[in-house]
């Protein structure tokens, strides 16, 4: 065997080894070795059916509830953060973000605000996705659920508009790709939400209990939107058919989510009920949620809060898995009372409020126990306005309406910020900040059309 032959043999042998390896890697064996890609993943193919659409509907309802008040560990929702921002609650926590919200100095980079904003927007997206699947796989049998998805979208957009500045965008994600839109002024967000509510009402025409419940929720939402837009009379007409006892509530359970208020108050003592005075003295504009000892907001003194320094006052409305009303007939009554306020019918307004005080409607499973003495009819618009918003604050305590109402007092009732928001020395450090609403978080900068807050008007 000469040198070349030996060379050839070595090429052949080495090549044979290589070929064998290549075949191993390249033939059927390869697919077996690399598959299955991931067992157990729920893929789009698993969801494309009527039952899949119903599953997405359930998920969307859950997301909607959780974005408002669902409890999940040490994270809060918009109702809670807005409660801190107003006079409803104060931070008894060590999180600087919570202290900032309490002080009204929340920044655009706030690490608590950003997920709250995202949670609201994601809830909106979940409802849109569910709506798409319901339309595709249950086009004729899911009108009530489709209507409910319009309700959740409308309510979420209303909440965004009430609590965040001008500059909210309402984009969508289609086939896994984001479709960004221009930021909108608050009134345009409210108008968009109103359109969703009308779309839902057009679908909720059935007479079964489920459809009626959704229709009432849509009517309440539409009425509140109309109030936000200054259409008081129309709002009163909208909510008229809704029974006082009606409620659309968020339910909780220990195996899913606990009531978010119970987590942040009773369980962890991170949020303490607010009051009109603290270690710094009287807090200008803050309502006495503790010292008023109003049966609508029962409180209990219990040592110090999570930060070990702030005197802690717990709320007595919600226990661990108590439901909390998202929309209810009480809201409708308050819409009607505000309509009376704006027509100058202070007696009519007071009558509605006194009726509620005499027979407090159930909220979730909570009914105030104790006497609520009748109110005296105020003589002036100023007094009537103050009385109405005080009453509304106690009736809707912890239900995400207070910030929108403070803001509306500036926007629609001609008051100034230092006549409405807690003002002066802040009990932890410095003074209350200048914010009237939450900023759109920097996280939204991924939207090429992001502008931040378009302005600082209420």
């Amino acid at each position, binding site marked *: 065997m000469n040198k070349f032959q030996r060379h050839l043999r070595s090429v052949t042998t080495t090549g044979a080894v290589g070929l064998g390896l290549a075949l191993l890697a390249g033939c059927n064996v390869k697919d077996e070795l690399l598959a299955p890609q991931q067992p157990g993943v*729920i893929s789009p193919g698993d969801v494309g059916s009527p039952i899949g659409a119903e599953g997405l509907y*359930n998920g969307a309802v859950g997301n909607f*509830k959780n974005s408002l008040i669902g409890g999940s560990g040490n994270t809060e929702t918009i109702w809670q953060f807005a409660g801190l921002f107003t006079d409803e609650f104060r931070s008894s926590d060590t999180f600087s973000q919570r202290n900032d919200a309490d002080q009204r100095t929340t920044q655009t*980079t706030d690490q608590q605000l950003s997920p709250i904003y995202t949670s609201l927007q994601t809830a909106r*997206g979940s409802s849109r996705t569910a709506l798409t699947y319901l339309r595709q796989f249950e086009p004729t049998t899911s009108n009530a659920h489709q209507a409910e998805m319009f309700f959740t979208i409308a309510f979420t957009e209303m909440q965004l508009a009430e609590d965040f500045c001008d500059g909210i965008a*309402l984009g969508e994600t289609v086939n*896994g790709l984001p479709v960004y839109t221009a930021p909108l002024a608050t009134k345009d967000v409210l108008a968009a939400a109103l359109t969703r509510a009308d779309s839902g009402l057009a679908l909720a025409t059935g007479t079964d209990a489920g459809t009626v419940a959704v229709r009432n929720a849509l009517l309440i939402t539409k009425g509140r939107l109309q109030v936000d837009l200054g259409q008081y009379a129309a709002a009163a007409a909208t909510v008229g058919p809704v029974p006082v006892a009606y409620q659309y509530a968020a339910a909780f359970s220990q*195996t899913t989510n606990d009531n978010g208020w119970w987590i942040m108050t009773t369980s962890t003592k991170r949020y303490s009920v607010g009051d009109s005075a603290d270690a710094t003295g009287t807090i200008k504009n803050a309502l006495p949620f503790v010292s008023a000892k109003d049966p609508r907001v029962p409180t209990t003194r219990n040592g110090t809060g999570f930060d070990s320094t702030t005197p802690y006052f717990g709320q007595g409305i919600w226990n661990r898995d108590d439901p909390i009303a998202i929309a209810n007939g009480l809201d409708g009554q308050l819409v009607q009372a505000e309509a009376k306020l704006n027509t100058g019918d202070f007696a009519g307004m007071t009558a509605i409020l006194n009726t509620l005080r005499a027979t407090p409607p159930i909220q979730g499973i909570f009914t105030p126990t104790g006497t609520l003495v009748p109110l005296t009819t105020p003589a002036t618009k100023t007094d009537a306005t103050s009385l109405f918003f005080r009453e509304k604050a106690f009736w809707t305590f912890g239900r995400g309406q207070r910030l929108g109402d403070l803001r509306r007092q500036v926007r629609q009732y001609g008051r100034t910020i230092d006549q409405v928001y807690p003002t002066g020395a802040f009990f932890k450090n410095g003074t209350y900040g200048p914010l009237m609403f939450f900023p759109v978080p920097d996280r939204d900068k991924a939207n090429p059309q992001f502008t931040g807050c378009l302005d600082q008007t209420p």
Partner: protein
Amino acid sequence: MTAFQSWSAGRHLRTTLAMLAVCAAPAVLHGQATVSGKVTSANQPLADARVLVRGTSLTAQTNAAGQYTLRDVPIGAQSIQVLRVGYRAQTSSVTLAAGDIKTIDFVMDAAIVQLPDIVTTATGQQRRVELGNAVANLGDVTKRVEESPVTNITDLMVAKSAGVTILPGNETGSSPVVRIRGTNSLSLNNAPIYVVDGVRMISASVGVATGGTTTSFLNDLNPQDIEDIEIVKGPSAATLYGTDAANGVILITTKKGKAGASRWSFYAEGGGVDDRNKYADQYASFGHNAAGAPTRCVLETIALKQCTQDSLTSFNPLRDQSISPVHLGHRDQYGANVSGGTDAVRYFISGDLENEIGPIKMPSFARAFLDSVGDPARDNEINPEAFQRQTVRANLSAAISPTLDISANSGWTNRNQRLPQSDNNSVSIIGTALKNPGFRPNTALCSASAAACLGYTGLGSLGEDLRGYGNFMPAQTFQDKLEEGVQRFTGNLDANWRPLSWMQNQATVGVDVASRDDWELCKLNQCPNTGTTREGFVSDQHSINRNFSAKFISNSSWQARSWANLKTTVGTEYNNVESDNTASSATQLPPGAQNVGQGAIKNGSNQLQTANKTLGLYVQEQAGLRDRLFLTAAVRSDQNSAFGTNFQNVLYPKLSASWLLSDESFFPKYGWLDQLRLRSAYGASGVQPGATTALQTFSAVTRSINTTTPGNATGTDTPSLLAAALGNPDLKPETSAELEAGFESRLFSNRATIDFTYYHKKTKDAIIAQPIASSAAPSATTITGNFGSVLNTGVEATLTLTMLDRRNFGWDMTLNGSHNSNKILTLGVDKTGAPNATIGTGVTRDSVGLPANGWFFQPYTFSDKNGDGLIDDSEVNVSPNTIYMGYSQPRDIISVQNGFDLLQRKLRFTFLLDYKGGYSLLNQTVQFYCANQPTCYEETNANAPLWRQARNIAQRYTSTKTQIGYLENGQFWRLRELSAVVALPNAISNRLRARDASLVFAARNLHLWTKYTGADPEANYTTGDVQTDFETVSPPTYLTFRLNLHY
């Protein structure tokens, strides 16, 4: 066969043929001869020397008698070389004829500088001079383990190699962070991979319910079993390790049997584990307001004349031994191993038992409290920081025939450990201590009048005496039991077949299987009174990690010319990294209940099984020219189960050159220069996406709703779906391509070596979880894609010096230094096609032109305008602009190791200094307490320097707040290791019937020099890329004694 399979098979055939064309230098069959002999030094047989026929793959190892045999040696002129760490290489030329049996003996001279000349590569063992890339070798690991304070693999590696950044675990049995040559990836893990005896090792950190501190599978390895550790630093060297190797590869070789009589080693170690860190004192300023009412003053109110200080107190439960949870821990370790056998069968068998009790212990007053309430503390509550490990290893090697060796290596580990509640955790042991009122309280007084104690009542929410702790007392925080148990088997079968003198084939099949159980328990009426904890809860999580590795390598060599040797390698490798996880938990436990089945409310989940599978094929051609110039070209092709469906495989090329310049005839000869080698290498490797990242998915959730009457206050737990990950079918691996160049030089009769490397590593297709604006209402907050590009450049240098080498006194020194520059080149484009400038809105962000995870803050200025020695909010001006403030990872690493031999080398004294610098560290512990408590130094103590007052004002009192004042220089020098080794006199050894014996005193983390104002600049609980010091237990000091006996 599907169309795709057919296409794929055809494509691979074409690939193979193309590779064969590349294999331009095949081997040639020769006749065969046998060479044997004996290797000695100082008239003693020298075991473990490697004898090789240069230019071939033939190698042999000397047995205990120093004997070796090389069979099937090609005929003709051959060069036989002997290499052994600590000795100068010897070479002998011989001309062989077919059938020759020749004897060649070697006498080796000890070398002053000890660098290994043989290194492990993906294609087998190779001479270091043949490699164009740098490979860090930890040297004689056995010696290091026996003579220095080593408790885990991290201790072995820290401060030993240039370019390797290691942040050791901060608690007993906690996880380290290892990074090599900077940060490559912006979203994926930047940790290197580990390979043990050819098997991909499970090396993950495990998140447990501590608040941050994690455990690590790295701690399952027993350092006593390790023969060798090599660190393959970057893609230029890791190309043939393929996808997942871009962050470097740690190659671990366990000890193998040596032919000869059985050799036994015994060791016993014991010592203390001491937390000597200076946790911050807290202060209380007793004063009165303008109305004369007693109140707590802080500097801001004093400066604004709202409060007048009457007295200042301080307190620190962590330093008060009567109530502190910090005490002296202890460790002990015992083990034995035996090695021996014949040329045909060799064995290494070892066993080891290690116990460590960390410094965190329940204080005696807390134990007394629990005794008083009839719930006495158990050991797992008294000592929540504990680690116990038993390991057994059996490595067997057999020469089945002159052409076939088979080895079976197996290791078994049983690890049990506990971790205390610490870190970012409302029941952190450190945190509850730091929440003290700033004075030692008189509980009777305070409980009677909180006002007299500045609002501190001294009592917990259950009426318990807190003894100065914040909201919870240690008796409760220590009742939260957290335990982890791991049983693990690592094993492989390795066959080495040499059918022809020019061909060597190696096949390895191995598994690494770990069964893990994590358990947390708070029994009924135990643990801190927060949330529902005292209703009792238990969580139990079982997981299985399985790595399966298989590889086949065929090496063929050809002496094409007398001056040219060619070596062809083809290989394939398959790795399957799998895990699955089942978790269950329960709340509302009845008395005595400890498991999930006993709880009233149960939750269970079965985490998705994840599998990441890689199939690779590679070919390499290496040319050795006159045994001075070595050129290598290689390419590897990988397919991976995590790639997007639109991406099939990736190619990683490699080129390298190594030139022994000083051996060239034209190179001038200098008396001081023994050897100069130039080297350069270019190569690429990658990191694959997460197992399911490419997939669009939905998630299953349960919601409490009423689907019949929407909004009904009575909900029903209802199965639900949510859109989840958006997926990306185009997803492919990150690819890092690295060019490195450098030189190695030996000087002054091998008294000094210099190793210098420059690297330029560019990661393209960097996987980034690109944020999606929330306003797009997405189901996921990010979309993952190959959007980015990151550049790491740097230099590394190692200098070894033998300063003195006398019979009675020796002094050697090793210096390692490295500098890294990291820069993000691109972050992809936004929806309009415009480049993304920055990703992230927090204090660390990724921004183009700046390093990954750069710090971003709003700066401030301050001045004491009124000269009162106090800073108030009017004297601090916070900028509205957020700007880049520096690196978050160390750029500069230096280590200095000195060794001194005394008393005729019977006593060896070594110390190792470790430096890290060039980065900033956010002191979150102090920042957090200053932001929230009135008791921190700069909030209350007027002696605080103005800069400390100002940083507190800027984060607490100004209208725009910034934490930048707590971003501190992380630079430090640490006396990392100190040891003294005494070789016991023969009289004692003989009495113990030992061949030799030594006694070692060793210390780790003995002293720290730093300006960092936290407890320790290495305090960290995260395994991510940005170090996090937040209520974190700081690294302890180890002081140990060890006895080594060899038989």
